[in-house]
């Protein structure tokens, strides 16, 4: 029988596998395979659409149920090679939002297994580091023995850290949400809702996968699951969300205003479950929720946010209990009839 400790271990192992699988936007095939293996036995229907979204249907619509789309994106930020010079150094551009500061001293892992480090040209006085002044060094000595070429894609590399109460890895954005969604998918036994779990692609470059997935699924309600920033580190941008205070219910971010009816539905359920939760207003960012909201004739949409420090750095940090509560909240929301 699976004890709580075992369950936690399984979840943590799953999370670690997910964050360690390379897969920047547009190159999601490996992560998609991992997810498919994990969810196949729990799915009533499973398919991959034209852009590579992995879509899993659970159950059919019953009395008082709705067609719900849950979206967690599988792609991570990364870099793409634009040029290899004669000495084997590679120039690159970003895939998704990559800050030059997080690249300094960084290590990368290419889809073909090649590893490398990021170097920086010398800077003028007062000049700030920028991606144009950086390059990737794979240890090649010339263009000819360089194992990567123009168009090759890499993610950042950093080991997973278990700090007890908190977990750290690269790509918690958004693999932690993928793990939460998978766990919810496994836990839901009976539901009146027809639930489409969309493991979406290309979110980091403009929520592109969710746009087409939402059109195809044509849901009545949408919930994105993604990470959000916190305001609980020294002299951070002011924000009420903090690690360890529970899942955050998104009121708005820069990409959309969550439907208040969806927000209130999520708050009601959190209160009923007696679990901690936080209200989130983010003056930045974007999630798949915006894509779902704009689909066809419009869809009421919201977002369940997992508080996360240091987003889009190779050391994103989440709180273990926040994850458990997120799974519980998501499962509870999806297992009952939805009254908006």
């Amino acid at each position: 029988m699976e004890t709580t400790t075992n369950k936690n271990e399984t979840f943590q192992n799953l999370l670690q596998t997910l964050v360690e699988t390379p897969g920047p936007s547009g190159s999601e095939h490996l992560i998609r395979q991992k997810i498919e293996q994990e969810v196949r036995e729990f799915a009533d229907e499973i398919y991959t659409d034209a852009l590579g979204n992995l879509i899993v249907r659970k159950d059919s619509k019953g009395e008082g149920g709705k067609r719900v789309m849950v979206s967690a994106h599988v792609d991570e930020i990364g870099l793409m090679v634009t040029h290899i010079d004669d000495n084997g150094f590679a120039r690159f551009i970003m895939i998704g939002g990559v800050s030059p500061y997080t690249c300094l001293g960084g290590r990368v892992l290419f889809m073909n297994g090649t590893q490398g480090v990021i170097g920086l040209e010398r800077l003028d006085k007062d000049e700030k580091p920028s991606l144009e002044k950086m390059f990737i060094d794979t240890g090649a000595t010339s263009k000819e023995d360089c194992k990567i070429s123009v168009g090759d894609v890499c993610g950042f590399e950093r080991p997973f850290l278990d700090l007890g109460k908190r977990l750290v890895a690269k790509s918690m954005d958004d693999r932690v949400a993928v793990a939460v969604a998978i766990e919810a998918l496994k836990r839901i036994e009976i539901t009146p809702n027809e639930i489409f779990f969309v493991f979406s692609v290309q979110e980091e470059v403009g929520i592109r996968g969710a746009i087409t997935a939402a059109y195809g699924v044509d849901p009545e309600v949408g919930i994105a699951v993604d990470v959000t920033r916190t305001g609980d580190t020294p002299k951070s941008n002011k924000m009420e969300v903090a690690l360890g205070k529970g899942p955050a219910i998104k009121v708005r971010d820069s990409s959309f205003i969550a439907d208040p009816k969806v927000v209130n539905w999520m708050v009601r359920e959190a209160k009923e479950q007696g679990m901690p939760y936080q209200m989130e207003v983010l003056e930045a960012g974007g999630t798949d929720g915006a894509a779902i909201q704009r689909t066809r004739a419009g869809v009421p949409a919201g977002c369940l946010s997992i508080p996360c420090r240091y987003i889009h750095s190779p050391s994103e940090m989440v709180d273990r209990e926040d994850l458990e509560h997120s799974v519980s909240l998501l499962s509870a929301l999806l297992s009952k009839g939805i009254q908006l």
Partner: protein
Amino acid sequence: MTEKMEISAKFDPQFGEQELDLLNRLSNALAVSGDEQEVRAIVYEELKEFEDNMHTDAMGNVLVTRKGSDPERIRVMIAAHMDEVGLMLFKEDGDGLFEFKVIGGVDPRQLVGKPVIIGRDHVPGVIGAKAIHLTTKEEREQVLKVESLRVDVGLGGSKLVNIGDRATFATSLAVLGPSLRGKALDDRLGVFNLIQLLKNAPENIDLLAAFTVQEELGLRGAKVAAYHFNPDIGLAMDSTPANDMPDFDGEPVSSYNTKLDGGPAIYLMDGATIGDHRLVKWLTETADAEGIPWQYRQPGKGGTDAGSIHKTRSGVPSVSVSVPQRYLHSAAGMVRIADELNTLKLMHAALSRLDKTIINPQERN
């Protein structure tokens, strides 16, 4: 992608008088985003044989369907945009003088001291600049703002043009040895190529051709065209910058985007689209098999109509191919005739060896 397809008709595009004449008309036509009528008329004229399968939609896109005969054929949408960047006159400011706004991405520094053409009648005008004798050194170090510039049509010229008219550079197409120089080669070359492909379409595809509007304003025409066509795969044929010029300090150049003479530029990733890997491979393998030179368009910013096409409905695997061009969005761009013909050749060869297996899920990566 199967090997069984033989190229049914050997397609060997040439650059003769007929081709030059059509390119002349296309490049010299005035069709700024939002008012693409002149190019629309040329397209209709050239494609008379398709008139039963051709219509103009609510935004002004010209949509042409050329059905193949193969029962297993795949539906391919190809977009080439008719619009160019330019200006709109919006206020009279004295006899024959007009204030204007820029439409699309024109560097204002390209406007000063240039001849322009205005409206349906191509009324001649100029965007003047202050005589240098009258300027101060400080003045000359400032960029001239669009608000301070005027289009001058001459005395009494206000009768010849209307506010609301669009205008653009008065450049005529010219052949310079191996090169073509002209305005709006972005994307009249694409329009030209799409016309040729329609006239020589292979039988294994339904060719859904979209001569789109308002690409320069955000890939807008392609959005509705793709919704209408609902294709299996999508392609954008456009033109892209070639920044293959020397670095002033002799440093090696690593951001050239594309190079002239490098052949058609195949996109991996731009600001609007991550090209479907299977389609990128299809194009590069075709080029290698046919001995057509090709290059990658360096991953970077910018966008083509593929940016709208691939996000249509429940998604359309898409890719872009462009003719490399120096000095895009200026008074005159420069392309190599060989690059243009190779782009057309590549497109035809690639389309001819296409079938539905290209979008098989197993084929993905």
